[in-house]
């Protein structure tokens, strides 16, 4: 029996079909990577699994039960960290722990939060605010916060996309390690086929939108832990990569596709209103950088 199951999930925004007939079935303890173009609808798919969005049609089932709203059993690592900037690393993690384990005592909860902060190697930054951390550290806090909830499924939405290559490789290894440690069921979304193949047991391409859907899944038959260097020369690895990329490019066909690309890391600071023009007058809503820096470019494939 499958642990997490999506049946004919479709979603459109105002007549614009984003996902169409998505079917997915994941076994307990399995690590599945979904790889797709930017703007294909990966975050939308993840939000649906997490329960933050309602699909227009279709169902999401966890352990055979249909899921309604969001909940801590599906732990989501957000694409843009989404740490609460006014809380320290510890407080961010603790908030999640307090919420998920109300029956534990205060000391137990504090110890639990500390344990997960140590797991992502952030003990020295325990009392720092997110603004004092690097991007990679913030992402690790976000991972720690989610893992501390001990979710049945760990959902990672491009957790490493915003990081530089070196930090990225580091965190990939960390994710692989933690996953083995807990035999955690993971859905990882990524735009990097190599990352998906390196980490996952199975990699599934998401076709380009509009109306994106999941392609065939490719099983990665390489035992864990994997050696990054050796992998590059592994014929099996190369074969899967070729297949996935061919499928993705093929899915776009000869037509032009629009790729919507986020250009800037989301900034979590509120808009500055202290400037010279006081706000007494305006009825405008503040605009955040993260909401406007989205550029649409035409690409030829």
């Amino acid at each position, binding site marked *: 029996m499958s642990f997490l199951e999506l049946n004919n999930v479709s979603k459109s925004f105002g007549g614009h079909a984003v996902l169409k007939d998505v079917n997915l079935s994941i076994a307990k303890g399995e690590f599945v990577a979904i790889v797709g173009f930017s703007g294909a609808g990966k975050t939308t798919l993840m939000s649906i699994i997490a329960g*933050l969005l309602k699909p227009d049609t279709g169902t999401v089932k966890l352990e055979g039960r249909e899921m309604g709203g969001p909940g801590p059993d599906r732990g989501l690592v957000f694409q843009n960290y989404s740490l609460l900037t006014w809380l320290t690393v510890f407080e961010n993690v603790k908030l999640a722990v307090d919420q998920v384990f109300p029956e534990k005592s205060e000391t137990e909860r504090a110890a639990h939060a500390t344990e997960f902060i140590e797991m992502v190697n952030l003990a020295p930054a325990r009392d720092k605010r997110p*603004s004092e951390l690097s991007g990679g550290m913030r992402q690790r806090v976000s991972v720690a916060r989610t893992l501390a909830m001990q979710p049945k499924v760990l959902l990672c939405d491009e957790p490493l996309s915003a990081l530089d290559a070196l930090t990225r490789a580091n965190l990939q290894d960390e994710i692989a390690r933690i996953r083995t440690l807990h035999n955690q069921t993971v859905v990882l979304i990524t735009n990097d086929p190599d990352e998906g193949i390196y980490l996952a047991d199975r990699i599934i391409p998401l076709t380009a939108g509009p109306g994106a859907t999941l392609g065939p899944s490719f099983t990665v038959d390489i035992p864990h832990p994997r050696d990054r260097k050796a992998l590059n020369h592994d014929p099996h690895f190369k074969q899967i990569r070729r297949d996935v990329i061919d499928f993705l490019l093929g899915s776009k066909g000869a037509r032009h596709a629009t790729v919507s690309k986020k250009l800037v890391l989301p900034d979590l600071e509120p808009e500055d209103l202290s400037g010279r023009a006081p*706000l007494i007058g305006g009825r405008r809503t503040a605009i955040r950088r993260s909401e406007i820096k989205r550029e649409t470019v035409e690409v030829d494939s």
Partner: protein
Amino acid sequence: MNESKLKQLDWLLLPLIGFAIVLALWAVSSVTWATNLPSPVKTWESSKVYILEPFAKRGEMDQGILRFTWYSLILVAKGYVLALVIGTPIGFFLGLSKAFTKTFDPIIQILRPVSPLAWLPLGLVLFLSAGKEAGTLGALFTIAICSMWPTVLNTAVGVRSIPQDYLNVAKVLKLSRTKTLFKVLIPATLPYMFTGFRLSLGIAWLVIVAAEMLTGRPGVGGFLWQEYNSLIYEHIILSIVTIGVVGFVLDRLMSVVERRFKTI
């Protein structure tokens, strides 16, 4: 002194030059076209007792300037707190509920530009039955209703612009309504709220003078009006300078507090 040293003193020298220019214009005006305007020297001569003995009390309307300022500040503080206590929740409701906004926004937009001079008589009428306290209550009412709008509107903007990410975190964690309010909504809105608080304080201080003038309470504004009626024009200038300086200091203090909350 070389040039770079001069540059370093810019922050002090240039404002001093500014003050000197205004003083000169004032002095020239007082002997040319506005002969009723007391000259700077005359103003100082007549005002120094108020400044040098700032807390003296010689009579109800004859007290040191800081003593008057103190009376005014107390009244402002009361009205201001009232404004924040009423304005902040209204701002939250506006930010959270579209229906609430649609219902009350037009009213707010109509009430907002009404001058304190228009509110005060209404305030006095409202509290007519309070007898001796009517003046104070009317003034408080006026300060509160005039100064709460920046708080209301900035809080509403702050709530509306909470990133969806934060709300998603609250949803995934299944935070209760109260927890969402205190752990997410309020902290995320605080920087905006404090901008509103600062602007509100500025308005409250503007209103106090009008309120004191019309009610004849002891305070900087009341003093100003009384001295105008007794033809001691020097003290009008003294009051104006005091009001300006106090307003400036209040604004600086609030922006220090505001900046503290910006960084979180």
